[in-house]
């Protein structure tokens, strides 16, 4: 689509005036019908041809452009009666509550007005938000008497007072009156009349100082009263005259007094506004809003340049163009209209009936009912989920998707079409593992590689190659799908068009060739929670239909192969490719900024394999070693003409100058470390790139904790680290394949003697629990500080049972050795834990719900198999059996309770943390670290004077710390020793 390119300088959000709506409308819509019998749209109907065209062949009746180019034109419906716009009902409510029902002014005194106007003007000048000020005004202006109307009322009260007084005085004194006093009174009355006239003629007193005026009248009345009080006599004529003069003022005063007491306005969701007990009609609301003087607009939060409050009550309804609500023709030839069209039909129909009834002079009741119905339709047209209104439904019972629903929420226009979009040059399929490709690579199915393309500029140096691709066409793999001519025309490569394209192609053309080995693509798995969820991989085109990835990149993507799918995006420009290659490549992300260690590394069998390869006593024949080295893409080692130890083999991977000491995962954390004399082979020493002692396990090159891997990245760079990891995992796999590795329940088998010991231990523990309970019942139990007796009992029981399970585990463990594959996996950190094994072999232990023993279910007992109030181990979910021996029905039930709680908790946790993350990301997304180390937002406002207070990039830190001094010293010691 072509158009005029302009820079947006400013965006104003305002209200459409009825005039605006009529001006932008191309036609008035009157008939609720859409098409006639012949299938042609009806004029002045909802599908009026002037509203725009959808068919690409036709031309628009309004603008003359072809279908597709015409964005459509609005129409309008004249509403028979005003209707409140749902979206503004709340605002209207607030405005009504803070303005006077008789004069329309904001219920603020003059000084308050001045104060807030000053504040608002200052904010507007600085382009700051005024919402909090408006909020203050709304609360302050919630008065029940108008300060403006009240002042008037006061004089009127005076007038009233004067009448009463003068009447009283006249009666008392009698009719004799001399000319002098008569004149005096007449003067005063005259003055009062003049003042009153002046006040009335000055209109609503807005351009003059209102107080001075009112005060003058007040003074005059008081003076008059004084004079009347002073005089000795009067005649009937003057009394009459006086009465006549003050009578209108008196009447006015009475009315003013009545109406200044403002009733509270309530909103009855979504659109009904109730004043006291009287429901205001939209017309009345509109009249009220019209009364608000323009000077007060800012005080109720309206910019007079772009809106008037009465525009929030609709008199004209804009009808969106047909392009916004296209009708779909079903296969049966039946036409199906958009939800918006359906709603507009409803509005038109009721509007028509309302108009007819009004013109025919139907009873008020009927008109009001129709008016209400029209209000309902217009309300649901804007928002079909407004609270307090039943949603309008389709014939099938499905709620209609109206304007607000199109925009709102995750599936709405904003979140699903503007913040995020469907894109071209992307692919998605199931993932599966491939241990033979590098961590940097991704296996792409040929089917995908022939579909997504890379644009290549044709030059005289690559023209031959490009011609070959075109010759292959779009079906044979290294082929091409499209050719773009220098005039930007895109031509699809077909067998028939191949020849002519080949003839015409020359430098300047662009060929969209198939994806090939070595291309850089973006690979992503949702949820994209951190930057390692999207990394750049090199393509390797492979047969079959799944994406293949190296097992080491499973942790950063959090991927497994139980049906996971992943997305791939192909870069379309050289710049993006270059940027991705240097910033997003997998090898650049081996270290995680989360904890300053490797997040990409060996998993599962890589770890067990490494241990089997390098543990003490593991030797390999030289020919096997050569095979393994070859498979691991290592340089062929010098022959030793003897058997190799596993440690020697592993040393082939290490950089020559590497020095390291650390304690392996298999370290038993003995009270006193024997260091070099470690019996478990857990003290790892690397000197000059030779593994002198210790076995390789998770701590060596595993994801999350691999120390050697971490060192290699930090000392030798990401390239070396990638090679190390690729080779190490392959070597480990070779090792595990040479030794053989399997596991079954036989691994958790323990001898009868062990089972007897465990049985005895558990029965002792259960006895001890019984004793505790007895002590509790006899009130011999002593409460722990800050705990009730009951809590103390619970804690003690939990402690006893917890110990029992641990002890039983220890017994089981003592019968397990390092020849047991399940134990190897648990201890090296490959998979599973010792707890898992002991639960299988010895005792499952206490099940918990809500962080304590199970106590819910029936009244005062967990299950009907127990007595009420029973507190024993068995009755509160202690599972005495092992998984292997099997759980009895009661144990099974308690176990399911605990298991269910765990499941529910994880489900809730992911939902909660997802929303929390969304809010955090929205708040922090455009902060960045400046060159000077400060953290700033997009306006340059300093958030932190130094990133993380210490300016350390956690990805380059030593597991979160700047440097591990102890480790550095140890390594220098080793190095010095080795150099000697």
């Amino acid at each position: 689509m072509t158009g005029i390119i302009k820079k947006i300088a400013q965006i104003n959000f305002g209200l459409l005036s009825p005039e605006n709506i009529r001006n932008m409308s191309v036609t008035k819509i009157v008939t609720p019908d859409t098409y006639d019998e012949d299938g042609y749209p009806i004029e002045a109907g909802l599908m009026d041809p002037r509203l725009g065209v959808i068919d690409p062949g036709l031309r628009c009746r309004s603008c003359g452009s072809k279908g597709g180019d015409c964005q459509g034109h609005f129409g309008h419906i004249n509403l028979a009666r005003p209707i409140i716009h749902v979206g503004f009902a709340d605002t209207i409510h607030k405005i009504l509550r803070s303005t006077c029902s008789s004069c329309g002014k904001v219920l603020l005194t003059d000084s308050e007005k001045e104060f807030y106007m000053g504040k608002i003007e200052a904010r507007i000048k600085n382009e700051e938000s005024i919402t909090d000020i408006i909020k203050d005004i709304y609360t302050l202006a919630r008065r029940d008497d108008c300060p403006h109307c009240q002042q008037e009322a006061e004089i009127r009260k005076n007038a009233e007072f004067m009448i009463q007084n003068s009447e009283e005085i006249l009666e008392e004194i009698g009719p004799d009156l001399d000319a002098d006093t008569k004149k005096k009174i007449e003067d005063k009355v005259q003055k009062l009349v003049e003042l009153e006239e002046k006040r009335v003629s000055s209109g609503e007193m807005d351009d003059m100082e209102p107080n001075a005026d009112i005060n003058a009248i007040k003074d005059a009345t008081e003076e008059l009263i004084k004079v009347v009080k002073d005089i000795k006599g009067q005649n009937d004529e003057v009394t009459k005259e006086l009465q006549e003069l003050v009578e209108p003022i008196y009447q006015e005063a009475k009315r003013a007094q009545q109406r200044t007491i403002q009733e509270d306005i309530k909103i009855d969701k979504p659109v009904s506004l109730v004043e006291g007990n009287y429901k205001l009609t939209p017309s009345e609301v509109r009249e009220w809003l019209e009364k608000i003087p323009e000077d007060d607009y800012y005080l109720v939060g309206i910019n007079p340049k772009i809106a008037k409050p009465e525009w929030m009550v609709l008199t004209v309804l804009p009808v969106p163009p047909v392009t916004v609500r296209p009708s779909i023709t079903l296969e049966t030839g039946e036409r199906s209209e958009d939800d918006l069209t359906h709603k507009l039909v409803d509005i038109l129909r009721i509007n028509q009936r309302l108009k007819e009834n009004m013109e025919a002079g139907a009873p008020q009741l009927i008109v009001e009912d129709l008016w209400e119905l029209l209000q309902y339709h217009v309300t649901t047209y804007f928002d079909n989920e407004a609270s307090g209104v039943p949603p309008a439904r389709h014939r099938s019972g499905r709620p209609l998707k109206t304007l607000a629903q199109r925009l709102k929420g995750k599936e709405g226009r904003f979140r699903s079409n503007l913040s995020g979009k469907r894109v071209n040059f992307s692919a998605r399929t199931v993932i599966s593992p491939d241990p033979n490709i590098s961590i940097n690579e991704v296996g792409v199915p040929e089917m995908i590689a022939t579909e997504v393309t890379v644009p290549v500029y044709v030059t005289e140096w690559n023209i031959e190659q490009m011609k070959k691709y075109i010759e292959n066409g779009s079906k044979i793999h290294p082929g091409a799908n499209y050719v773009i001519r220098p005039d930007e025309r895109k031509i699809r490569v077909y067998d028939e068009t191949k020849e002519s394209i080949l003839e015409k192609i020359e430098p300047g053309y662009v060929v969209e060739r198939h994806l090939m080995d070595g291309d850089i693509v973006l690979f992503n798995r949702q949820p994209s929670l951190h930057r390692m969820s999207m990394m750049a991989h090199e393509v390797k085109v492979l047969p079959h239909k799944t994406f293949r990835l190296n097992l080491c990149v499973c942790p950063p993507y959090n991927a497994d192969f139980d049906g996971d799918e992943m997305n791939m995006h192909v870069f379309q420009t050289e710049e993006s490719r270059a940027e991705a290659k240097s910033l997003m490549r997998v090898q650049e992300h081996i270290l995680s900024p989360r904890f300053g260690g490797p997040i990409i590394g060996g998993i599962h069998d890589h770890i067990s394999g490494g241990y089997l390869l390098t543990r003490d006593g593991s030797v390999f024949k030289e020919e096997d070693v050569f095979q393994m080295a070859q498979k691991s893409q290592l340089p062929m080692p010098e022959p030793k003409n003897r058997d190799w130890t596993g440690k020697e083999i592993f040393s082939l991977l290490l950089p020559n100058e590497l020095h390291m000491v650390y304690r392996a995962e298999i370290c038993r954390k003995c009270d006193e470390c024997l260091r070099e004399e470690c019996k478990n082979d857990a003290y790892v020493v690397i000197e000059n790139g030779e593994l002198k002692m210790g076995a390789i396990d998770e701590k060596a090159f595993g994801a999350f904790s691999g120390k050697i891997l971490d060192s290699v990245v930090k000392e030798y760079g990401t390239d070396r680290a990638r090679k190390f990891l690729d080779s190490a995992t392959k070597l480990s796999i070779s090792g595990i394949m040479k030794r053989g590795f399997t596991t079954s329940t036989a691994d958790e088998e323990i001898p009868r003697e062990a089972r007897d010991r465990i049985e005895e231990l558990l029965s002792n523990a259960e006895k001890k629990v019984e004793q505790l309970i007895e002590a509790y019942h006899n009130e011999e139990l002593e409460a722990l500080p800050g705990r009730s007796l009951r809590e103390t009992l619970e804690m003690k029981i939990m402690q006893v049972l917890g110990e029992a399970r641990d002890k039983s585990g220890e017994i089981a463990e003592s019968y397990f050795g390092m020849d047991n594959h399940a134990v190897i996996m648990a201890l090296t950190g490959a998979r599973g834990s010792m707890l898992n094994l002991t639960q299988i072999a010895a005792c499952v232990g206490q099940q918990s719900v809500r962080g304590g023993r199970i106590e819910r279910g029936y009244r005062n007992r967990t299950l009907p198999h127990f007595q009420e109030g029973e507190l024993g181990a068995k009755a509160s979910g202690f599972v005495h059996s092992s998984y292997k021996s099997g759980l009895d029905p009661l144990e099974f039930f308690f176990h399911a309770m605990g298991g269910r709680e765990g499941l529910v908790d994880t489900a809730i946790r992911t939902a909660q943390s997802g929303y929390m993350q969304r809010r955090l990301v929205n708040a922090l997304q455009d902060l960045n670290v400046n060159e000077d180390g400060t953290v700033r937002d997009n306006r340059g406002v300093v958030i932190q004077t130094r990133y993380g207070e210490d300016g350390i990039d956690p990805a380059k830190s030593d597991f979160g710390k700047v440097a591990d001094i102890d480790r550095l010293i140890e390594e220098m010691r080793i190095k010095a020793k080795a150099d000697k």
Partner: protein
Amino acid sequence: MVKKDILKHKLVPDHVVLKKNQIVKVLKAMEVHPEQLPKIKLDDPVVKAIGAKEGDVIKITRNSQTAGKFVSYRLVLG
């Protein structure tokens, strides 16, 4: 109520009002307008305690888990 010197509380970091020339120096070093600094309210208890005025820049030195000592600046606003 017992009146306590909040500045002596261990959780209250060190607040110092900067002099005019110091402000200029700090702003120049960080290349910021005063408005781009983090803000502190005039009715903040510490601001009241040290008697800072609107427009002053306060230097706050706090103990940091990662860096030992950490210095930040705040602009006093009404």
